[in-house]
């Protein structure tokens, strides 16, 4: 369980997050939604410790993450997998090396075990024969899948995805979405996704947090998001003409 309590974050004089509090459902797909510039990426980076919060607290199973130093955070970080918006695969390494890297750093697995684990994770994201390729040789969708494979290679308890659909065509977006949901359910991972893709919201949001101007504006799930009375949320969810027609 991840608990966010009264989190505030400022950059200089600008307040980005104001008193944000929520609890992510364990073993479920939790979505943070909001328009561009609403603060959702900053919130996710605060939760994983890439940004330090100014006030409040972030708790992983009751362990206060925000109060720990870098070394003390290592133990929690080993339980975290993250899929970045652009994939963030290491350019100088092949796909296989990208996946094997955390195993090399944190386990005593031998070469064969590592290869087996890498191949298992790649097959789990439906990728084959890419082991020796470099990230620059992959398509956008393949990069995202490799990033997901790398994120799950250490059997994480928590999976964070920052806009996993950005830059992908609608079909590939659905493939990536389904993959994340399957992995979440299969391994009982607590997943937190930043998105403004309405397909993800309506299909996969076990829990949805709507961030508006740095504040938690609404909380619900995929069932209630369609009937929410909150104006700002409705403006975001029904921004497209098709969805407005669908609502009517």
């Amino acid at each position, binding site marked *: 369980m991840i608990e966010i309590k009264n989190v505030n974050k400022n950059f200089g004089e600008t307040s980005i997050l104001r008193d944000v509090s929520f609890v992510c459902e364990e073993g479920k797909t939790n979505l943070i939604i909001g328009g561009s510039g609403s603060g959702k990426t900053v919130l996710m*980076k605060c939760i*994983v*410790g*890439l940004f330090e919060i100014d006030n409040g607290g972030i708790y992983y199973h009751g362990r206060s993450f925000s109060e720990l130093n*870098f*070394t003390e*955070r*290592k*133990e929690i*970080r*080993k339980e*975290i997998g*993250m899929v*970045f*918006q*652009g994939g*963030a*695969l*290491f*350019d100088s390494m092949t796909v296989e090396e990208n996946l094997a*890297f*955390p195993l*090399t*750093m*944190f386990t005593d697995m031998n070469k064969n075990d590592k290869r087996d684990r890498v191949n298992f994770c790649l097959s789990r994201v439906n990728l084959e024969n890419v082991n020796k390729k470099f990230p620059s040789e992959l398509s956008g969708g393949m990069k995202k899948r490799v990033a997901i494979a790398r994120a799950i290679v*250490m059997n994480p308890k928590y999976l*964070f995805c920052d806009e996993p659909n950005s830059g992908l065509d609608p079909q590939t977006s659905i493939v990536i979405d389904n993959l994340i949901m399957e992995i979440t359910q299969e391994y009982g991972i607590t997943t937190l996704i930043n998105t403004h893709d309405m397909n993800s919201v309506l299909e996969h949001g076990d829990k949805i947090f709507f961030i508006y101007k740095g504040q938690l504006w609404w909380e619900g799930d995929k069932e209630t998001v369609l009937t929410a009375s909150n104006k700002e949320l409705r403006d975001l969810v029904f921004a497209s003409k098709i969805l407005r027609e669908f609502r009517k």
Partner: protein
Amino acid sequence: MKALIEKPEKFDVYRRQVVKEMESIGFGSLGIVAIISMFIGAVITIQTSYNLLSPFVPLYAVAVVARDSIIIEFSPTIICLVLAGKVGSSIASELGTMRVTEQIDALEIMGINASGYLVLPKIIAAVIILPFIVVLSMVLGILGGLIGGVASGVISAVEFAHGLQVRFVPFNVTFALTKTVFFAYIITSVPAFHGFYAKGSALEVGKASTRAVVYSSVALLVADYVLTQIFLA
């Protein structure tokens, strides 16, 4: 700085990184170092001969001056300045690109000390390999001086060889190599800092790379002055 010297997650991985960086920083620079050393060595010899042209100065003095200029100043300082451009821009742009494409964030999320893993091996590799590069530059510079001097007819090979042995001070080599160790630290740590903390887009990476070369070159020259003052004044 504190993060740099934290205990490595896996010592063996860091050792492999150091070897890889030694190959990249050291062996990758051999070509340019050889060419510059040979030509500058030849030019120093010819210019020294031009400046010392006098019946009261023995001809072998040309080799003495060329030798000392190459050992004390040219090989450690000018070669490191050249490497500040070549290696420095490469380090800053590599780390800057990793920063803006969130690869450094990915390392940190994994629980890896990113500055220790990415920067420390570069510094250690440069501190180990650059003294060898500078010694090679000294040898090639003197060889270039011999070839240039003989080819242009300003000094014979015998006179040059004699001059090389006159009033040779071994401490000059020690001083040059000590300087090189300091310079190696500067030309890796300053660009690494600028690259590691680059923000924004590809444009910012370019700017960070330029800043890295300028700052490391200036820092190197200031260090050169300070070390010369300490050791030779």
